[in-house]
């Protein structure tokens, strides 16, 4: 398949693949076992200038946009969906600044993210605010030149590891989350900002998922993103741009699983022949490959829409995330099936890929929420 990538995109893809093949593959099993954060890989991404591929050049990035983001995420995820997340979640944490930050905020924070000096994280989810984003309880009260934050965020990817956090809190609790929520940039090390429990997860185990605790945390007023009350809009705008990233992660995981399945099917002999010669296996492999291509085509289309400046990509973004993650789950389950008993064992990578794939159906909006978004657009479009 020719994806009609530009020369620059091909270079980005080759470079990300080199890191995935040479640096990530040899260690992914160990990191999955220990749950250690992949600092070493971040160092390689930094050296290779890949941390800022999606960030505009004026802030020290490469200016490759969503497409570059998707290409890197996909290639890293092809080797390990968990390790790739340190990069992808930094993208999610950066988008609120990229989309709604003022010039000073962009210069201060995006440059650090682009250079690889800092990782970012996106902090919205709370115990009572998952799919129901507006049910956020964290409060930000203005006192002089500061906002005082109180509350707890849950399941924050890159929590504890990132230096820069975009945090959503209520500035006007009476108005509720939809109109009374605001977004802030919070730096690691601010007084009153600490980290709680680190989660023990089914998959993406090399990623850090942690609680953020704000106890009278003093955040400078200049760290408010946009205006007070714009938090919900900032979160939704972010998701529109970030969901193709999750979709790319899903495509990468699925691609990795397909490659393992084909390789195994060609080697494994039963009844005197490689199992790849049996139609039962061939049909499974064909379906895996076709669905991955369809998912990838959708992801790339949405990224190209975003990079071309199309204003509303909400529906397409949701479609990409929904479809690609469903494909990733199905493909990884089938990869385990093709490898049979070996696929179920930890010495082969496909069981890990199956565990890693599951989260893509859940985070950054469950696939049920994605379908609601799609349906709402459809109802509006077809009057």
């Amino acid at each position: 398949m020719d994806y009609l990538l530009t020369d620059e995109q091909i270079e980005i893809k080759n470079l990300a693949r080199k890191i995935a093949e040479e640096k990530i593959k040899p260690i992914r099993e160990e990191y999955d076992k220990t749950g250690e954060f992949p600092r070493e890989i971040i160092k390689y991404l930094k050296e290779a200038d890949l941390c800022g591929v999606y960030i505009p050049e004026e802030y020290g990035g490469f200016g490759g946009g969503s497409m570059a983001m998707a290409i890197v995420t996909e290639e890293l995820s092809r080797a390990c969906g968990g390790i790739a997340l340190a990069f992808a979640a930094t993208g999610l944490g950066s988008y609120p600044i990229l989309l709604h930050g003022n010039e000073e905020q962009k210069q201060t924070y995006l440059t650090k993210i682009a250079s690889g000096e800092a990782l970012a994280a996106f902090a919205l989810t709370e115990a009572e605010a998952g799919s129901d984003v507006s049910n956020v309880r964290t409060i930000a009260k203005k006192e002089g030149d500061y906002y005082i934050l109180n509350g707890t965020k849950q399941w924050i990817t890159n929590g504890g590891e990132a230096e820069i956090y975009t945090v959503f809190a209520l500035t006007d609790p009476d108005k509720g989350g939809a109109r009374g929520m605001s977004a802030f940039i919070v730096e690691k090390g601010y007084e009153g900002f600490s980290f709680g429990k680190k989660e023990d997860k089914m998959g993406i185990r090399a990623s850090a998922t942690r609680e953020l605790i704000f106890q009278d945390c003093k955040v400078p007023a200049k760290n408010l993103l946009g205006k007070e009350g714009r938090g919900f809009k900032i979160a939704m705008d972010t998701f529109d741009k970030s969901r193709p990233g999750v979709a790319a992660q899903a495509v990468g995981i699925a691609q990795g699983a397909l490659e393992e399945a084909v390789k195994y099917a060609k080697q494994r002999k039963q009844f005197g022949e490689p199992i790849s010669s049996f139609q039962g296996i061939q049909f499974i492999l064909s379906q895996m490959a076709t669905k991955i291509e369809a998912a990838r085509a959708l992801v790339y289309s949405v990224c190209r829409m975003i990079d071309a400046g199309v204003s509303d990509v909400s529906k397409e973004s949701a479609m990409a995330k929904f479809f690609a993650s469903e494909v990733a789950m199905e493909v990884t389950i089938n990869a385990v099936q093709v490898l049979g008993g070996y696929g179920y064992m930890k010495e082969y990578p496909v069981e890990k890929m199956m565990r890693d794939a599951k989260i893509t159906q859940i985070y950054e909006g469950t696939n049920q929420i994605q379908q609601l978004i799609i349906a709402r657009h459809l109802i509006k479009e077809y009057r």
Partner: protein
Amino acid sequence: MKNIIVCIKQVPDTTEVRIDSNTNTLIREGIPCIINPFDLYAIEEGLRIKEKYGGKVIVISMGPPQVVESLKEAISLGVDEAILLSDRKFAGSDTLATSYTLSRGILKIGDYDIIICGKQAIDGDTAQVGPGIAEFLNIPQITYVRKIREITDNSIVAERLTETGIDVIKSKLPVLLTVVKEINEPRLPSLKNKMKAKKYQPIIWGFNDLDIKEPYIGLDGSPTRVIKIFSPQISVQSEMINGEPDEVAKILLDKLKI
């Protein structure tokens, strides 16, 4: 710091190489070419010296025009300039003629403090070209360097890996070093340098560009003659001794005494 010159060689990727069983020679057609892996350590060390002491890193190679690809790869790692010595007259050079030709290229670049080579190339395994260049330039050499301890305005202290240990050697500059893989971990290319490399055109010098004497180059300048290439016959006679450990040890000891 003046120029830091790194000599590199393009070699066939030996993980892909097959031997022609009729002729016992390497089948080179269709085999991807790579930078000799030991030379990547030389490039990395050159870049590290530059980062610490300043200067400019220049890679030089000799070979057919296709070597340009390897030179561009060096640029993608952060090297400043790349020079290719390429001319039909250079074809057929052995290590002596190659050392001479490279030394003439280096003289043309001029103004250098340190020349770095990989300890040997993975295709020929001779480890002769680095030392040969130093001889033609009449400068000191430190081979098998595993660590550079210190560089001053006019001297260098380096650790040299030997079979029995480490030699610590101080030399004046300019100097030629050959490096072993223990010296560093080569970096990955960066995106910015890759984009630079895409557009980069290495400088190409031919026979007429160099102050060079014809009898010493190419096939005429190469005293080495390859008479025959063959895989050595391995004829080890082995004997299995079975039994209880005590017995086996005794039998073995008796055999060793003879």
